[in-house]
């Protein structure tokens, strides 16, 4: 039975009665007869030509709208139905202002190089008996100062850092000049 169906199915979908070879024609005549086959074949070819039939576009529009409506999020539903639009706008404004006011200010650290006068350090090396004197002097140093919004850097008091010049130290001068 299954083999017979497979054979009839294949012939119905691919051939007309005129296309049949002698063997198939004899088999068809025996199984269903010429007129039966032609009616079946005509029906198969007619329905296979109308595999699709256009649906009017408003059906799709309705269904997609239905789908969107069913799966709309809770927020969207609330925004659409529960409150008027001006209330939503006010709520959003209130939230924005609250965030702006209550959010803690971030501390911004910036690096600002400043020049600071530092105490002059004189190193005196006396080599006896020779009278050779080496003097090393550093007079400028760049110091990074980190500033925050809340703490401004203090001004450097020049008077505090200024020391007495070497020439004014009379005792030292006496030592160097006299060579004692």
């Amino acid at each position, binding site marked *: *039975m*299954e083999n*017979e*169906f*497979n054979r*009839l*199915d294949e012939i*119905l*979908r691919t051939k007309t009665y005129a296309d049949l070879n002698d063997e198939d024609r004899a088999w068809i005549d025996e*199984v*269903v*007869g010429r*007129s*039966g086959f032609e*009616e*079946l074949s005509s*029906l*198969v070819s*007619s*329905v*296979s030509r*109308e*595999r*699709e*039939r*256009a*649906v*009017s576009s408003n*059906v*799709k529009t*309705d*269904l*997609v709208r*239905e*789908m*969107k409506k*069913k*799966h709309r999020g809770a927020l969207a539903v609330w925004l659409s139905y529960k409150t008027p639009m001006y209330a939503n706008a006010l709520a959003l404004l209130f939230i924005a202002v609250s965030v702006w006011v209550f959010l803690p200010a971030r501390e911004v650290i910036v690096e600002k190089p400043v020049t600071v006068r530092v105490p002059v350090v004189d190193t005196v090396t006396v080599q006896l008996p020779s009278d050779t004197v080496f003097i090393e002097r550093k007079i400028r140093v760049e110091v990074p100062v980190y500033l925050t919004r809340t703490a401004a850097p203090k001004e450097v008091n020049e008077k505090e850092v200024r020391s007495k010049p070497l020439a004014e130290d009379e005792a030292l001068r006496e030592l160097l000049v006299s060579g004692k």
Partner: protein
Amino acid sequence: MLFRNYRKKTDEQLMILIQSGDHHAFSSLYSRYADRLNAFFYRMLWSDSTMAEDYVHDLFSKIIERPQLFKSGYLVKPWLFQIASNMCKNGYRKKSFEMEYLQQLQVTGIAESVAEQKLDEKIITDQIRLSLEKLDEDRRTMFLLRYQQELTIEEIAEIFQIPKGTVKSRLFHIKKFVESSIKN
């Protein structure tokens, strides 16, 4: 969501997206099957185009309402045509009630309206419809699924939940209906 390529997705993947509320996936599945289902309903339901469109609408509404009815691991195409076949069965039942009611009206002397008579005449001229009406309900469904929608025997067996051999046997016996109609 915007960059998903729905065309490349299988029907089953689309159904899973529909279950999660993706209306683009729904739209894509609709485009694949609406016209085919409409053609199927049209031939199953007395070549009535309005009724066929209503049934397409109802079928997809069912999918929207209860997408979870589709179980993963199954194929979408046989599932859709199984729903369509069941809807047609309900349609036939409803029609038989209506026919009984009409017969009762005729017995009581209430005549058919002229519009209904014209509609019937128009429908009767459809040769395919006449040929299909020679088949019983199940064979008509199987015939259309096989030769109109070109479903495989395996898919038809899945729709009717019967063995493949039974499907082939029922389809093969369509020839008997043809023989008897020719004799008549």
